[in-house]
């Protein structure tokens, strides 16, 4: 089996890594991303293409089952590693590579899977194994509530035969209750019932292909009755704010309703890593303006990187993240200022990006003021285009002040997402305006809107009393 071994070793040189950020682990995530870029390892967007599931941060109660599902969604050879502190990133990646390149480990894992499959009740029939390697070439079931349901053909005997029209014809969505492990939630089907008064289906109202109920219908913006699907976005999704969960009701790919949830119940240190200089100044430690400004510029670069990745401009996103790492590593002002200027010029001048984001997610001043939005989102006062351009402008301004050694005024509290001295954290206001902005947007637009606001769930977790200024 030398060919397989050779292929495994080749595959292990540069595995694709899916970075799963836990709430409260921003520093670790930034370190891991920087390490991946230094090594030249590609990143994955979904568990399906990942070879390594890298969990950054400690255990979070709500996340355990999501992580399990993501791990099940990966195809072997694959492994799962965790780093709790920024310094552990490099050795975790090395351990992952050793594990993936280890033929014996992979073979025994494949044997275990083959045994489990033989011993299990379901047999997927005469499906030929597509992969020819040591891992055994078996199909891996996806989504735990529906083990053992076979092909769609399984539901044909229930129907009348040739009168049966698959539900996919009406509206254009089938029984896709969960859109895959990309968002890590295998929800038990939330709706029951068959079709609403469509006689042509001839199914007697009890069609349940593969054990999943059909989607219910609802009115849409054009007055049609289309299937409504529940789609959870996050918390395990590429380029998504950590700890944010959006429950969308979609018809087609248009969002009808969005409900925002944040993963809480996490009892580590509160507060966002990006706003640490201001909290330190509040608690009396000497902090320079340069430090605070550097951290804020890095936060804006992080948000910009995420936004550009969602917009599909991978190179610009990579540049933004490189600049973020440069800023955090303490690169001198002259060097960073030049690079940031070039980047901001390129992205700011991009007519294509402006054309693509114009008119999306318009946040008018009253709604913003009512929710208590502060910071760049308020100052930009407009749509997604205005917001990312505001970020660019503020980064340029901040980078000009990196060498400022004067002490940070404890009363000044302008963090990357807004003022820190309000009655609630700035991200809380951003999270509150999200559902209003998302209703009626398409999926792509919805992701752009979330990325242009980029709420930080860590800010929503209250600071421990000792370090907060009040």
């Amino acid at each position: 089996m030398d060919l397989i071994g050779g292929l495994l070793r080749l595959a292990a040189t540069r595995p694709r890594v899916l970075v799963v950020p836990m709430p409260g682990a921003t520093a670790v995530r930034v370190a891991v991303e920087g390490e991946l870029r230094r090594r030249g390892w590609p990143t994955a967007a979904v568990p399906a293409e990942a070879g390594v599931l890298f969990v950054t941060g400690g255990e979070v109660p709500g996340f355990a089952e999501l992580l399990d599902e993501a791990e099940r969604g990966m195809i072997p050879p694959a492994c799962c590693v965790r780093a709790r502190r920024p310094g552990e990133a490099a050795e975790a990646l090395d351990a992952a590579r050793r594990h993936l390149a280890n033929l014996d480990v992979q073979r025994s894992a494949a044997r275990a899977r083959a045994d489990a499959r033989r011993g299990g009740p379901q047999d997927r029939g005469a499906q030929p194994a597509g992969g020819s390697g040591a891992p055994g070439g078996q199909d891996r079931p996806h989504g735990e509530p529906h083990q053992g349901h076979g092909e769609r053909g399984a539901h044909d005997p229930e129907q009348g035969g040739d009168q049966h029209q698959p539900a996919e014809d009406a509206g254009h969505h089938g029984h896709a209750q969960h859109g895959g492990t990309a968002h890590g939630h295998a929800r038990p089907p939330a709706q029951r019932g068959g079709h609403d008064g469509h006689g042509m289906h001839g199914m007697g109202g009890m069609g349940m292909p593969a054990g999943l109920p059909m989607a219910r219908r609802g009115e849409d913006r054009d007055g049609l009755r289309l299937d409504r699907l529940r789609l959870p976005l996050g918390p395990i999704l590429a380029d998504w704010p950590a700890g944010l969960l959006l429950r969308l009701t979609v018809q087609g790919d248009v969002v009808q309703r969005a409900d925002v949830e944040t993963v809480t119940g996490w009892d580590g240190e509160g507060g966002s890593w990006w706003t640490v200089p201001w909290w330190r100044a509040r608690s009396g430690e000497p902090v320079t303006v340069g430090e605070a400004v550097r951290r804020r510029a890095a936060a804006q670069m992080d948000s910009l990187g995420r936004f550009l990745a969602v917009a599909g401009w991978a190179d610009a996103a990579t540049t933004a993240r490189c600049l973020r790492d440069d800023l955090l590593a303490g690169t001198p002002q002259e060097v960073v200022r030049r690079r940031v200027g070039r980047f901001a010029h390129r992205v700011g001048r991009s007519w294509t990006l402006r054309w693509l984001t114009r008119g999306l997610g318009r946040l008018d001043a009253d709604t913003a003021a009512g929710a208590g939005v502060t910071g760049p989102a308020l100052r930009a006062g407009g749509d997604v285009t205005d917001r990312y351009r505001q970020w660019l402008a503020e980064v340029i301004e901040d980078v000009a002040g990196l060498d400022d050694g004067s002490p940070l005024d404890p009363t000044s509290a302008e963090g990357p997402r807004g003022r820190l001295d309000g009655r609630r954290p700035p991200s809380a206001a951003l999270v509150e305006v999200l559902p209003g902005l998302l209703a009626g947007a398409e999926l792509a637009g919805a992701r752009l809107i979330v990325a242009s606001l980029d709420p930080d769930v860590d800010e929503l977790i209250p600071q421990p009393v000792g370090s907060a200024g009040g």
Partner: protein
Amino acid sequence: MNSSRNLSGRQVVNPAPLWSVLLAPVALAGFAVAAVTGDAVLAGRATGRRFAVGMAVTPLAEAARLLVAPPRTTVAPDRLLWRLGGAGVAVAAVLAVAVVPLGDRVVVDLDVGVVWFNAMEVVTWAAVWLAGWGPNALFPLVGGYRFVAQGLAYQLPFMLALITAATGAQSLRIADIVAAQRQLWFVVWMPVAFLVYLAGVLAFSFLGPFDYPAARDIAGGVLAETGGVDRLMLLAGRWLLLTAGAAMAVPLFLGGGLGPLLPAWVWSLVKTVAVLAVLVYLRRRLPTIRADRYVELAWVVLIPVAVAQALVPALVVLGRG
């Protein structure tokens, strides 16, 4: 001008021997691998690192991993259609390149070569949509429909560009189109058609600014739930399509194998590599162009411009004869 009209395609391009049927897919795959490697190197350079051999190895490592991985499945997929979709993309690319001449040899010399190429490209509509429908999951389904939406935008200008080249040569046979460029390459007096054609190539291989069906914001779209060899087929199919489109640009607009000094096949190779390099470079320069915005631009701006461009060779040909 009259002499080029009398020159028939047969004097420029001849059918190749039978063993070239095997050589063509291999050559296509070779170019596609070169394109993927170039793309990986550009991606590596974008991170600010200097060129290293490791950058070029990344796609090979990925392919190796997908080869040894078992296929992945979802709940109640339509397995047959899923596999058909994934394989169909690569098959369409190989079939499309059968009419593209390399130098002065072509695998199949069809009288309607341009139409055959377009037909094979249209097969990708079905293939990508099936690849999105098969997994029975939302993100791939959205990706499949996004491809159709994008198709509505790019297909008509693309066909007009093909028609422009065919009008200039007064024939749908690719050999005749090459022969008609003896005096002047079509790209010189049909530049708009050339640009529209290149955009169409990026669009039907859903790469670069037109990777809307497989975009990162829907977690990979049609690629979100595939794994193993199926995934490798779909990924490879995209790059094979890009290569086939780039190869076709050469006889259509860049004079095929015509050129001084060097043999015809060398010129074909050089021109194909040049077009591929331009496409791979351009693909990283723009964000993902969403079909809902692009449809407006395509129908309001590109189609009239492409029609106007198609009038140019029509008037020239009328003026000549």
